[in-house]
């Protein structure tokens, strides 16, 4: 775990403690479960966003993807009679294709990620509204999918299951558990696999990566595919969570939540920096903040303002710490080896990961 991640964790605990003292309801099992559910939902696509940001790109169409694929999914299972497992595959498949298209436009057509995904944001939102003729997509009365609902919106008290009901703790929402599973898998991919190393290499310096014989195009396309596919998965969870989707508003600004979570988690928008632990902690902090606004009786209209301020403060503080660290390092290295051919141990920083 990076120092940065640790700092973020401490911040979350401090904020949580303060809120808990002011309003003990923060620690009630119902509130914890609700917050965990939201962390799960937002965390799933925030992790995807992290992959794109590591390459130095950005994916702005996440919110629109969640709206479009949400209405498609509901339509498929509720109105078209498609069996839900098939519908899940179809939606995930569309997610993959979207990522391939974005990646292709960015690498082969050399368009800027911001432009490509901004167009995606507009196009998918427009298509979503057209798809339902601007009406709300929802389930007809009496239609239900018990298994799907259990998987997506159910809660399980793991301790209780393991002990055969002898002990009880909080029932954890499945969305949160699935997010954790994805996080662990993606942690291995990003921090331990060959592909993950390539991602960092491409994000830090695409030119040098190319000169090392890395197929940079594939790496970048794969990052967008991961992002849009996880967004597609999140779209299903959100659809089942809200159960009705107003295509003009559903998922609005979600891409910004994801970017905010990544930035809070120590990702650099220039690419090449960030960790899975960081983005997950970022997603947690964002939800805790939202929760704080509700619990402390702050007018909910201030929601975004609170979020923005905390991110700003966090980024400024991080910048200051980094600068101080750099100055210390600089002082140490110039103090010991002025222009000497051999650098000194003080300037060596193994990449902690």
């Amino acid at each position, binding site marked *: 775990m990076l120092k940065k991640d640790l700092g973020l964790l401490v911040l979350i605990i401090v904020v949580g403690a303060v809120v808990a003292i002011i309003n003990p309801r923060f620690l009630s099992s119902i509130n914890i479960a609700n917050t965990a559910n939201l962390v799960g939902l937002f965390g799933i696509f925030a992790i995807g966003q992290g992959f794109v940001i590591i390459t130095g790109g950005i994916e702005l169409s996440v919110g629109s993807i969640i709206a479009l694929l949400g209405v498609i999914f509901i339509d498929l299972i509720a109105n078209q009679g498609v069996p839900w497992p098939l519908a899940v595959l179809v939606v995930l498949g569309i997610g993959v294709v979207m990522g391939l298209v974005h990646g292709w436009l960015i690498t082969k057509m050399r368009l800027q990620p911001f432009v490509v995904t901004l167009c995606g944001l507009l196009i998918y939102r427009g298509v979503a509204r057209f798809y339902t003729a601007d009406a709300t997509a929802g389930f007809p009365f009496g239609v239900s999918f018990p298994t799907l609902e259990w998987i997506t919106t159910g809660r399980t008290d793991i301790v209780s299951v393991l002990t055969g009901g002898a002990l009880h703790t909080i029932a954890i929402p499945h969305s949160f558990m699935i997010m954790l599973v994805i996080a662990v898998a993606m942690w*291995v991919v990003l921090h*331990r*696999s*060959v*592909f*993950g*190393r*390539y991602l*960092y*290499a491409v994000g*830090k*310096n695409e*030119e*040098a*990566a*190319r*000169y*090392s*014989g*890395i*197929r940079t*195009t594939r790496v970048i396309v794969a990052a967008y595919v991961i992002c849009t596919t996880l967004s597609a998965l999140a779209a299903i969870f959100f659809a089942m969570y809200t159960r009705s989707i107003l295509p003009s508003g559903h998922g609005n600004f979600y891409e910004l939540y994801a970017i905010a979570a990544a930035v809070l988690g120590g990702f650099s928008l220039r690419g*090449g920096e960030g960790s899975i632990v960081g983005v997950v902690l970022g997603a947690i902090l964002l939800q805790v903040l939202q929760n704080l606004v509700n619990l402390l009786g702050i007018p909910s209209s201030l929601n975004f303002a609170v979020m923005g301020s905390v991110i700003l403060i966090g980024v400024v503080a991080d910048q200051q710490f980094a600068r101080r660290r750099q100055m210390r390092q600089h002082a140490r*290295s*110039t*103090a*010991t*080896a*002025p*222009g*000497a*051919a*051999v*650098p*000194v*141990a003080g*300037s*060596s*920083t*193994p*990449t902690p990961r």
Partner: protein
Amino acid sequence: MQSLPMTASATATAASSGPAEPFLRLSGIRKAYPGVVALADFSMEVRPGEVIGIVGENGAGKSTLMKILGGVIAPDRGTIEIDGVAHDKLSVAGSFKAGIAFVHQELNLFDNLDVAANVFLGREPRKYGFLQLVDSERLSADVQPLLDRLGAGFEPTTPVSRLSLAQQQMVEIAKALSFRSRLVILDEPTSSLPLTETGKLLEVIRSLKAQGIAVIFISHRLAEVEQVCDRVIVLRDGHLVGTLERDEIDHDTMVRLMIGRDLRAAYAAPGQARGRVVLAARGVCSSAFPAGGVDLEVHAGEILGLAGLVGSGRTEFARVVFGIDPPVAGEMLLDGEPIRCPCSADAVSRGIFLVPEDRKIAGLLLDMTVAENVSLPNLRAFASNGLVSREAERRQAERSRAELGIRAPTVTTRTSALSGGNQQKVVLAKWLAMSPRIIVLDEPTRGIDVGAKAEIYKLMRGLADAGVAVLMISSDMEEVIGVSDRIAVMHQGRISGILEREQFAEENVLLLAVGRGLA
């Protein structure tokens, strides 16, 4: 600036007009850092119109000296006397006021602006009172005489992006002149210049001298130092090991002083007879020279030098060979088989490797460690089931470190912390850890000190002796002639001639480089 002599006829006379009084005098300068004495008891004098060369390996104390002159750091001991007034240190402003100007290796120009705007950036003449519009006419009129003094062949209104590197350096020097500098310090000005351009820059130095401006010329290219300097100061490990006056300046003497031994040994002896053709290019042309076409055969066991002016299409050819850019036309044969490398990964998988020109941008990931850089081209070999084994990576990096003599505290040091020579060795280590069939090295020793150069030559020779085909692109004439077994010369995207060892001569290379036949 009117106070300075400006006539061209002064060129011949200024140098011989007797020793003027020094306006800058350093005496007994010492600067130590914990564990290292960067500069010990250093003294020098600078007179108007003098060209002083400062040579020494990296780490010899040149940068420390420059930082003291620039007022960036203060010496521990010693005095700096300017116009007879002694200071124990200079401030940045003080250095500027004393008329000391720096032209750094990395130019600080805005290539989206024109020449005049760059020279007077932040000091533009204004007009129309409070509107504060830039008075472009006056700006150009003010810059023109500066350019005339340098004999620059471009206009104040020329965009900097259209200038060659040497011309850009002239802009920097014009900027120095506009501040009425008395001493211009050129830090490695020629290391990235092609041959013809270098001549132009040396011309500029001579004209500065003629105008009574002192020049400190720092360079690894000793031939140029020999040509242009009145006096050469040699530094080694922070000590002044020799001051050579005009008639004592001589290549071998400088090298001996710099490294304390002879350099001839640096150029490893030519290898055995060359073997079969490994890579053959037939009419290969890059998009930079669609009308060109490179026909070239690189043999196993040889070092083929690829000379030519910068911009003759050598780097572009290397990029095509390595699959970075697609060829516009032509074909390539590897061991007689036609190949296509639409992507650098294809080239790598066939054993075609490239050490690129710019190690900081293309050669290395500076933020990553030595081990991570070394393993990158062949990462799958250090992984099982797609997961990278840091242990295997570390072991390989340790092996490379020992084999190539990479001086780094540990293999988990970031490559940004290494010196240029050691960075270049890491780039080489990336490829040597795999088995190359042909390795292309684009300016492999640029900006590297003499000691590290010798080690890199030895590595190249070792590769050739092991049967690898080595193609070395170089703009350093000494190096091309000293290291190559054959020299191919490029001109405007074509091979204008190939020289065998008995034809090696600077003249021949130059003639071919400018597109003329051999005499």
